[in-house]
């Protein structure tokens, strides 16, 4: 269930002229609103900030004064411990490879299907659209049992493919591309067709270069979900060498016991790569979410 409205116009920033001639009462009200939202934002940042601070404090100090926000002995020993004692770097690599390949595969297959459905007319096209619409209401989570049997039979458990293949049938992405391609005037393609370009070339040289927003939305969001996927990787990954960040973190978490600096260091390290992705691509992620309503 998702709305596909990629053609949404960009909102104009600023509300500055809205409250013209504000009386002192509305000014007070505005200040109150501002204070409330600042408070909420700070509350929202507390867990992350506290995790970061704790991860940088010496273990001994945490034991004596667990909730302090300060130390005079900042240290990275928690991080060193985590990296030395676990396969974290391998998990990073596994997460990165599977997420990147999933994103690329989704963009490629979904955009081709979206293009064919938007621009070509073939027998069975309506049936195909109906089949895809039906797929929208199937949560992949209810398929874990038959999927597990399937991947066991294919001898694909504990491989990258077991993580990549199930992320590919993303129906919403097909509809995102289809809607986007429909918004591109056919006259652009007609010129290329007069020159004798086939459909594949039309797709590759005219439509895809014009679809940067749709491509980045699907690619980034697929990357983030694949990275954060937990239940399915938990089922198909049993060897520590093939684990991804979320499954790996969950598997070692119990081992740290009361070593809070290490626990928090592992949480920070787990959050760090996607945080970087978020900071770098904040605009694309937010545009992607608001224009497609894609939710993992």
């Amino acid at each position, binding site marked *: 269930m998702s*709305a596909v409205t990629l053609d949404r116009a960009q909102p104009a920033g600023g509300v500055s002229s809205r409250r013209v001639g504000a009386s002192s009462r509305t000014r007070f009200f505005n200040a109150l609103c501002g204070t409330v939202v600042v408070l909420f934002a700070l509350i929202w940042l507390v867990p992350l900030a506290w995790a970061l601070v704790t991860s940088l404090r010496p273990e001994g100090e945490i034991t004596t004064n667990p909730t302090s926000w300060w130390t005079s002995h900042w240290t990275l020993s928690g991080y060193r411990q985590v990296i030395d004692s676990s396969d974290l770097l391998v998990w990073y690599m596994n997460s990165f490879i599977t997420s990147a390949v999933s994103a690329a595969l989704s963009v*490629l297959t979904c955009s081709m299907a979206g293009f064919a459905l938007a621009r070509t007319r073939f027998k069975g096209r309506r049936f195909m659209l109906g089949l895809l619409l039906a797929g929208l209401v199937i949560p992949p989570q*209810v398929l874990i*049992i038959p999927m597990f049997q399937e991947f066991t039979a294919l001898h694909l458990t504990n491989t990258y493919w077991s993580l990549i293949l199930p992320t590919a049938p993303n129906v919403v992405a097909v509809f995102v591309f289809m809607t986007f391609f429909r918004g591109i005037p056919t006259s652009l393609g007609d010129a290329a067709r007069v020159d004798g370009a086939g459909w594949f070339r039309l797709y590759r040289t005219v439509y895809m270069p014009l679809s940067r927003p749709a491509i980045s939305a699907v690619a980034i969001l697929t990357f983030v979900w694949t990275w954060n996927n937990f*239940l399915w990787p938990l089922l198909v990954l049993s060897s520590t060498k093939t684990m991804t960040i979320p499954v790996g973190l969950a598997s070692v978490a119990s081992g740290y016991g009361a070593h809070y600096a290490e626990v*928090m260091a592992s949480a920070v390290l*787990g959050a760090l790569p996607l945080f970087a992705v978020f900071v770098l691509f904040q605009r694309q992620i937010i545009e992607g979410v608001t224009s497609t309503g894609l939710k993992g």
Partner: protein
Amino acid sequence: MVTDTIAGPTGTAPARTASRRSRTPTESFTGRRTGPWMTAPFMVLYLLFLIGPLIYGIVMSFFNSSIVHSGLGRFAGVSNYREALTDSAFWQSMWHTVLFTIFTTPPLVILAFVLALLTERIRHGRWFYRFAFFAPYVVPSAAVVLIWLWIYTPAVGLATKWLSAFGITAPNWLGSADWGMISVSLLTIWWTIGFNFILYLAALQEIPREIYDAASVDGASGFATMWRITLPLVGRTTALVIALQIIASLKVFDQIYLLLSGGPNLSTRPALEYVYDVGFTDYRAGYAAAASMIYFLAILLASIVWLIFSRVRVKEEAA
């Protein structure tokens, strides 16, 4: 097709047909041969990893399949369904899922709207609020739970310390059935509110300023403006946010499994974890498949009810 007559029979335009070689004129205008090929990669993956497993799951639910053996096993008729429907543990897990949805949906919709409304009024540094509310959404569930386990730790955790600073005795966050569900709901609100928040923020930014100006010229109070203008204008977003949120909450697994392991005493175990337990701990794949199908039907029913409900509302608004 009109385009066919424009292209003409092959013989009339020899120069152009030569450049197109194997493609018939209709092909170059409708793509009836290339179209299926372009959908093929997606459709193969779609049939193999979504529709196929669904059909196999339905078939499996009528057999006594095991997760450790290949093949379907012995035919069981409807006995898996009969057993699931009469198993109180299954219904309890379904109820926990519903309870989690009831606990998380209203705050995640209402609070997201309020925060977006407040943020929208702010003139400077809106990126900061977007960052603060949306950043947790990209953190993996395992990392989120590690942080919150530490916050909920009895005696030394942040939640306990802060409450005692106000003279309130902290509850047993993770140790009791009632508080377990509340604790995991609080975590979920913190973790996922950013998604609904930015949907609302985008919707609010699309409301033309002139409408508000007109309302204030007419002397509308702030409350009336909000009730009569803002709320109806974000109505479509609200419908979308509620639908996505209910479906997302009904699919809960990660945070309850990681934070509470469905405990204490299975008192928070969601439906998906029930499926996981009977499938991968008891190895009863056929039975687990039957339980997943009932669970799937429940989610489907919720989506359909919502669809009908929002259709009716749209019609009423149009009338």
